[in-house]
């Protein structure tokens, strides 16, 4: 039975999540040099368009089509064949609305990776990689964790809104990608953010959109929806404050970039846990995501020397892993129906751990293979001249800013 209130909320939530991808473009765009901002915005907008098409053609059915052996969805829903308005079993919203809501998640996940290869990627290589990655990494992963019959779902893995499926897969893929494509030229000397206000605006609207992302993942209007809403806000706040304090103590000054990075780390960390934990736990989860993100961004990255341009791994990967494990610690039966370690159910932590390991291995190996294939066919990196002049002019023949009219 379709419920009108549930349907209205899910329409709004879907639109909120849609907005997150262009918003992410501005978050990332503000952090790159001014000769590359259009390339980043362009990549996000194109992902929104291309993955939307991929999803209705084949993506949805691979992820949520009738289960085949726990591994992949069958092709029954290819081209949205037979996908109408009647709700799926156990749902109260039109089937097509579920398609739309999940579509926005499929869109934003590859867009997260944009931050790893920013400022040096060839547009054609990027496009091919994105299509293959969505189809061969994201769709199966979404099936395993979210679709009834998926093998991790059957194990009892908890991933409320995509901590594992979205943030760990994107974060790990970003790390592998940034190592394979190599460092930016002149990295570390002249890659300071060119427009932090854009990045702040981006973070603000990501926070806003994340209400749709997390509270929408309850797939209707119920207690869990409100829990997720409150937890999302609380975790983001806890993480922002944590990063600010760390910046203040360690680097001697609180920074705007620090606070917005903390916000994103907190939002990522609470994503898998949003509908399963108490508000007090969400402060801890947000703060933990921020602390671990801070360590990776400030120290580990420098030490290991990979050039993950905008810290997709340090923020999404690490906070995502922490959030998935923290769900196994803090989950409470009263909120979401399952207990974690702190409520006397250590098994849940084990299940979360297995899920995290699977996501890491699958996305790392998958990204490695896809990168090599795309690199062979089209090439992934622009040449030195193009990189120096900037991707806006060389890949798109446009420039974001003019010096004279």
């Amino acid at each position, binding site marked *: 039975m379709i419920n009108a209130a549930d349907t209205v909320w899910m329409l709004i939530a879907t639109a909120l999540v849609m907005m997150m991808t262009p918003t992410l473009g501005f978050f990332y765009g503000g952090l790159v040099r001014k*000769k590359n901002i259009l390339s980043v915005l362009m990549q996000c907008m194109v992902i929104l368009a291309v993955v939307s098409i991929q999803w209705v053609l084949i993506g949805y059915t691979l992820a949520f089509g009738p289960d085949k052996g726990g591994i992949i969805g069958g092709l029954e829903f290819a081209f949205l064949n037979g996908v109408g308005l009647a709700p799926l079993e156990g749902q109260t919203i039109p089937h097509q609305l579920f398609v739309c809501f999940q579509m926005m998640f499929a869109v934003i996940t590859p867009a997260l990776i944009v931050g790893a290869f920013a400022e040096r990627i060839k547009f054609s290589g990027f496009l091919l990689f994105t299509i293959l990655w969505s189809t061969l990494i994201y769709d199966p992963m979404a099936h395993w964790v979210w679709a009834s019959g998926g093998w991790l779902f059957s194990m009892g893995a908890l991933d409320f809104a995509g901590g594992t499926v979205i943030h760990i897969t994107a974060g790990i893929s970003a790390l592998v990608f940034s190592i394979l494509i190599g460092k930016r*030229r*002149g990295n570390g*000397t*002249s890659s300071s953010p060119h427009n932090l206000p854009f990045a702040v605006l981006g973070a603000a609207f990501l926070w806003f959109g994340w209400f749709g992302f997390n509270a929408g993942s309850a797939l209707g209007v119920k207690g869990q929806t409100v829990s997720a809403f409150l937890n999302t806000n609380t975790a983001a706040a806890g993480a922002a404050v944590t990063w600010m304090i760390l910046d203040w103590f360690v680097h001697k000054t609180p920074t705007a970039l620090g606070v917005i990075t903390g916000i994103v780390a907190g939002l990522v960390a609470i994503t898998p846990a949003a509908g399963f934990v108490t508000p007090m736990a969400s402060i801890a989860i947000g703060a933990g995501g921020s602390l671990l993100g801070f360590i990776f961004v400030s120290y580990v990255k420098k030490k290991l020397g990979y050039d993950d341009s905008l810290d997709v791994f340090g923020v999404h990967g690490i906070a995502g892993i922490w959030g998935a494990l923290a769900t196994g610690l803090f989950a409470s039966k009263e909120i979401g129906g399952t207990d974690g370690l702190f409520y006397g159910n250590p098994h849940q932590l084990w299940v979360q751990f297995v899920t995290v390991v699977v996501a890491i291995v699958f996305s790392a190996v998958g990204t490695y293979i896809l990168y090599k294939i795309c690199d062979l066919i089209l090439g992934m990196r622009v040449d030195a001249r193009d990189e*120096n*002049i900037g991707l806006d*002019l*060389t890949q798109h*023949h*446009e*420039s974001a800013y003019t*010096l*004279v009219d």
Partner: protein
Amino acid sequence: MKYIIAVIRPHKLEEVKRELEKNEIHLMTVVDVLGCGRQKGVTEVYRGVTEVDNLLRKVKLEIAVNDEYLDKAIAAIMKAAPEGDIGDGKIFIFDMAECIRIRTGEKGNLAIG
């Protein structure tokens, strides 16, 4: 006293600055500029309309030095700025009539350093 104007590639600015600092030249003014020389510009296309723009982004450094620092400054720029292709830029050197530090009113060699 000499006044140096150097037009260089934007991404070479950090290297040039570092090299100048190594040679104890710490004072400079930096401006974003567009320029055209023998290097061809990059074509821009907006909604299908092509604009061949031969103005390219460069960075202009302006440095005032005492005579004994002139050669060091030029050597530093010549070391850090080139890539070996057309478009590396140019250095212009002028005699400077006077230099005054506004805060103290000091003039000439004293005011530069």
